[in-house]
């Protein structure tokens, strides 16, 4: 492997996280930990109705509340259609949102905002804003939205990019390859599954928050908990009508993202309140607001039909998707596209494939990007259908996957047909260790010995299930990352990256990638990231992009800097650069044995001879998106009498290429798997018949605690991705795609009930087991 030929020793080692010491010491690193004197508090008035026109807004009583400094609503804010989805340009999500509209489209939609001296004054002012609504019939399911004569949720004339507003269809995709219907009809063996995922929440422990203030030059600084600082800058500038050059966006440490902070929500409101008042403004969602007014996973119903030969070769694959994007179309098209584009290539042998889907509007909270990004929904149906197919074929589910998954050197037409809101990019798979993942995972869980045994322990019956998944590493033709690497006069380095560390450890990993090339320990590379004034561009932390896309940019910058270092050393030593090697902080001549330390080189270039700044800026645009692969195995126990499901063990074996930081990579898998287990067992947002969320908080929306987490065993199975930095691919998302189908399949193995609607609550499982009187 490439790593072994390098001498830096940084890559592949679980070095101490660069921001770790200050995080464990509880330093004030997060957005709201900064006290800016004179700050106002911003707050938002939510809509109490799921669907209504605003007849009038009367702020006169609210203005009288002592301490109120500004009130925003549709009457005093320019109308600029935009999308809250923080994506690259051209933005693939429809421009169906304005800051404050004359219509509200879900309970929790933004009606007005205030800035006041205290939280109490802000709350008081909100309570005194009088809004007259004309109620409209709400649409609370995708089926209702598509029904003939359904009310039109987006009837505003200035929206752009909606697929079919008059039928409430935000986005639609139809990709036929070959003739799947005919092939299915002719297939010797078929299997079908329809699986449903409800509204669920990222539940980052830090709520969305922002501080907007003015720097000493009068420029607007937006300090925000975001995954996409550069998109925030671009979108805020457009929405509030400010020259982007007057805006600096800073992302400090942030308390989790998982996609929910790939969304530009509070930033333009805080910016506008700051502009109107000339004062710093702090805003934070309450936990309840995070649930209803940030973003959710797209609830979906996905049907998969498989046709295979008798020996288990897939011949036809059909996937039909109905996605609920909620009141606005943030990520509607791209999440929908990914349901197919990140799943169907996994089984690339089928000549006939049909992917068809619609994302429709409803008067419910807005869905958006959530780890897995549609693939999670797709794999639930695909991998349950594969389990059914294996059963029909009398084939071990592992063996069925083996006969069909994509190999190195192979491609899938899907790569080219489905991209992110446009056509994709043809690519071949250059690295894949799924075979090993399957072997190791099966061995570790005891697949041969335990599956199909239905071992009983009182009312508990045990079963085993498995699933496979892949994802991507960045978005081809869209993502671009840049890095600037500077050598200091003491021979240490500064690495400036636009990349956004959400807690994933990307600051550390990027430092490792540079350190490896520079032959220095990681602590010689100081990382500064995610500041639009001081770091080069990066599309942001989403689509599993940072290690691969940003990492490649860093590697390019580092290799440029390395060459400059060798040039300086060559001149100093009077030798050819090609005779020099750089390792352990020393440049040494293979010929003469003479050497110079990096600190001597830094000193020489800065102060002595041929003075110059050793530095480089490099960028990387994502030409292909190498998929990471994973095999998931789990053991569950089902209480036949109550329907309670316990996940006893969960094994995930994943191929992320070379793991730059194995501990961080394992952590990504473990966390993703537990979120997936939450989806499978307990997470679901519930709504009243009028569209109000009934469990908007951790009291009644349960995410797994340490006592609910099974023993999760994350195994990294190495491959080497030739296009990746030091052989690396992504890891952050793929782990969430497996738990839903693996657990569903394990429940089937245990008790013979097919769970196709998440979460698999005691009630649903008990019902599936047989009639309840």
């Amino acid at each position, binding site marked *: 492997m490439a790593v072994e030929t390098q001498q830096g020793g940084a890559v592949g080692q679980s070095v101490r996280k660069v921001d770790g010491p200050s995080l464990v010491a509880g330093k004030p690193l997060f957005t709201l930990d900064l006290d800016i004197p004179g700050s106002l508090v911003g707050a938002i008035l939510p809509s109490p109705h799921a669907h209504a026109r605003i007849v009038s807004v009367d702020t006169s009583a609210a203005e009288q509340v002592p301490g109120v400094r500004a009130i925003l609503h549709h009457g005093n804010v320019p109308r600029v259609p935009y999308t809250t989805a923080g994506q690259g340009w051209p933005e693939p999500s429809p421009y169906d949102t304005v800051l404050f509209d004359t219509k509200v489209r879900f309970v929790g939609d933004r009606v007005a905002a205030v800035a006041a001296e205290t939280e109490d004054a802000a709350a008081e002012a909100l309570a005194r804003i009088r809004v007259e609504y004309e109620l409209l019939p709400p649409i609370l399911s995708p089926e209702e939205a598509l029904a003939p004569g359904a009310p039109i949720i987006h009837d505003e004339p200035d929206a752009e990019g909606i697929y079919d507003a008059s039928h409430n269809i935000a986005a639609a995709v139809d990709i036929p390859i070959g003739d799947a219907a005919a092939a299915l009809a002719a297939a010797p063996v078929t299997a079908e599954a329809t699986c449903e995922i409800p509204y669920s929440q990222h539940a980052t422990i830090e709520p969305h928050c922002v501080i907007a203030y003015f720097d000493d030059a009068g420029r607007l600084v937006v300090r925000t908990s975001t995954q996409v600082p550069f998109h925030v800058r671009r979108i805020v500038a457009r929405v509030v009508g400010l020259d982007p050059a007057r805006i600096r966006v800073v992302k400090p440490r942030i308390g989790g993202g998982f996609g929910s902070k790939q969304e530009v929500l509070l930033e333009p409101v805080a910016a506008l309140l700051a502009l109107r008042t000339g004062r710093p403004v702090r805003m934070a969602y309450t936990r309840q607001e995070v649930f209803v007014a940030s973003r959710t996973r797209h609830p979906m119903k996905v049907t998969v039909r498989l046709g295979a030969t008798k020996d288990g070769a897939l011949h036809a694959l059909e996937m039909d998707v109905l996605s609920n994007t909620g009141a606005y179309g943030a990520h509607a098209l791209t999440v929908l596209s990914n349901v197919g584009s990140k799943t169907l290539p996994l089984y690339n042998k089928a000549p006939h494939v049909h992917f068809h889907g619609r994302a429709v509007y409803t008067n419910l909270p807005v869905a958006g990007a959530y780890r897995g990004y549609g693939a999670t929904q797709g794999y639930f149906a695909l991998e349950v259908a594969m389990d059914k197919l294996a059963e029909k074929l009398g084939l071990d589910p592992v063996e069925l996957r083996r006969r069909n998954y994509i190999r190195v050197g192979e491609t899938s037409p899907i790569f080219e047909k489905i991209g992110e809101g446009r056509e994709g990019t043809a690519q071949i798979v250059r690295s894949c260790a799924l075979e090993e993942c399957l072997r190791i995972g099966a061995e570790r869980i005891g697949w041969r010995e335990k599956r199909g045994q239905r071992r009983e322990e009182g009312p508990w019956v045990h079963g085993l299930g498995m699933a496979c998944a892949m994802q991507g590493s960045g978005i081809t033709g869209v993502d671009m990352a840049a890095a600037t690497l500077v050598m200091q006069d003491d021979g240490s380095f500064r690495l400036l990256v636009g990349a956004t560390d959400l807690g994933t450890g990307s600051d550390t990993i990027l430092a490792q990638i540079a350190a490896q090339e520079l032959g220095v320990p990681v602590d010689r590379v100081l990382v500064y990231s995610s500041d639009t004034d001081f770091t080069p561009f990066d599309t942001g932390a989403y689509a599993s992009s940072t290690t691969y896309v940003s990492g490649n940019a860093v590697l390019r910058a580092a290799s440029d800097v390395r060459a400059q270092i060798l040039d300086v050393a060559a001149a100093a030593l009077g030798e050819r650069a090609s005779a020099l090697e750089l390792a352990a902080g020393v440049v040494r001549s293979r010929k003469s044995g003479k050497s110079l330390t990096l600190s001597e080189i830094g000193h020489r270039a800065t102060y002595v001879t041929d003075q110059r700044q050793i530095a480089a800026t490099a960028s990387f645009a994502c030409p292909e998106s190498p998929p990471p692969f994973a095999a998931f195995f789990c053991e569950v126990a089902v209480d036949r009498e*109550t329907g309670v499901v316990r996940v006893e063990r969960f094994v995930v074996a994943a191929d992320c290429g070379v793991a730059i930081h194995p501990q961080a990579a394992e952590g990504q898998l473990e966390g993703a798997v537990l979120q997936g287990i939450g989806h499978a067992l307990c997470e679901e947002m519930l709504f009243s018949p009028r569209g109000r969320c009934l469990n908007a908080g951790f009291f*009644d929306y349960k*995410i797994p605690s340490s006592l609910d987490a099974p023993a999760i065993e994350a195994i990294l199975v190495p491959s080497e991705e030739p296009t990746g930095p030091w052989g690396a691919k992504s890891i952050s998302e793929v782990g969430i795609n497996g738990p839903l189908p693996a657990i569903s399949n394990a429940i089937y193995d245990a008790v013979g009930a097919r769970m196709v609607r998440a979460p698999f609550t*005691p009630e649903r499982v008990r019902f599936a087991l047989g009639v*309840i*009187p």
Partner: protein
Amino acid sequence: MRLTGIRRFHFARDAEEALSLLAAYDGGAALLAGGVDLLRSPRGDIEGVIDITRIGLSYVRESRGGLAIGATTTLTEILASAAAPAYAGGLLASALSQVAAPPLRNMATLGGALVSAHPWADIPTVLVALGAEVRWQGEKVGKAPVEELYGTAFRGLFRRAVALEVVLPPWEGAFAHEKISRTRYDIALLNACCGLGLDGEEIRWARVAVGARPNRGERLPWAEEALIGRKPGGELWNEVQRLVESRVEVGDDRRAGAAWRRRTAGVLVRRALARAAQRGET
């Protein structure tokens, strides 16, 4: 964070002072012990708060074979007490360790749980099953079985009275508690607490309570009657399971449906009976 609306805070020196402060506020004040319920969703009409954690009501004592537990004793203190583990076949240890996460158990008090009496809570079901009695001080000192109290407008009573002590009677036999929740320290989707006393081959007394139905825990006297005088064992437990399924009053809420609750109530009662019988033997 917003202020809570609380304008004045008092540490009561004793129950009398707490009462006179309560009276002085005329409904505008609340007693504060653990604070979990009071501060989770502060009532807008509360101006004064009277802290009663420093008036000597935090204790667990053995009392005539049973237990007397001060109202402001935290769940953690009960679990850590010398007397609790042995009581009623270890019921308190097993039931309370399933209630809320440790940091909340460090705050939540037995009196608070009794007075809040959330329908989804485990403690009311346990107290009702145990035949617990509560002593309070209002205009005068009062006492009543918790079960009886829950049949009255008890919330009004505790706006004008200080819960002093919960008395758990002695039981010769054992209890067991069963609970189903979405995550381990979640509120109950359904719970059951059952106790049995054996006299040789015969059940001498039985207590059966089911809670979070979604209504608050209540005893099922007909299930108890069906047990008394009978021979303990799997057959009887199955019979009672079927009886509970056919007669228990259950309903729907957003957390679970009536059909599942009906079926599962029978299962939980059967399991609790079996475990109580097992504990009673050892």
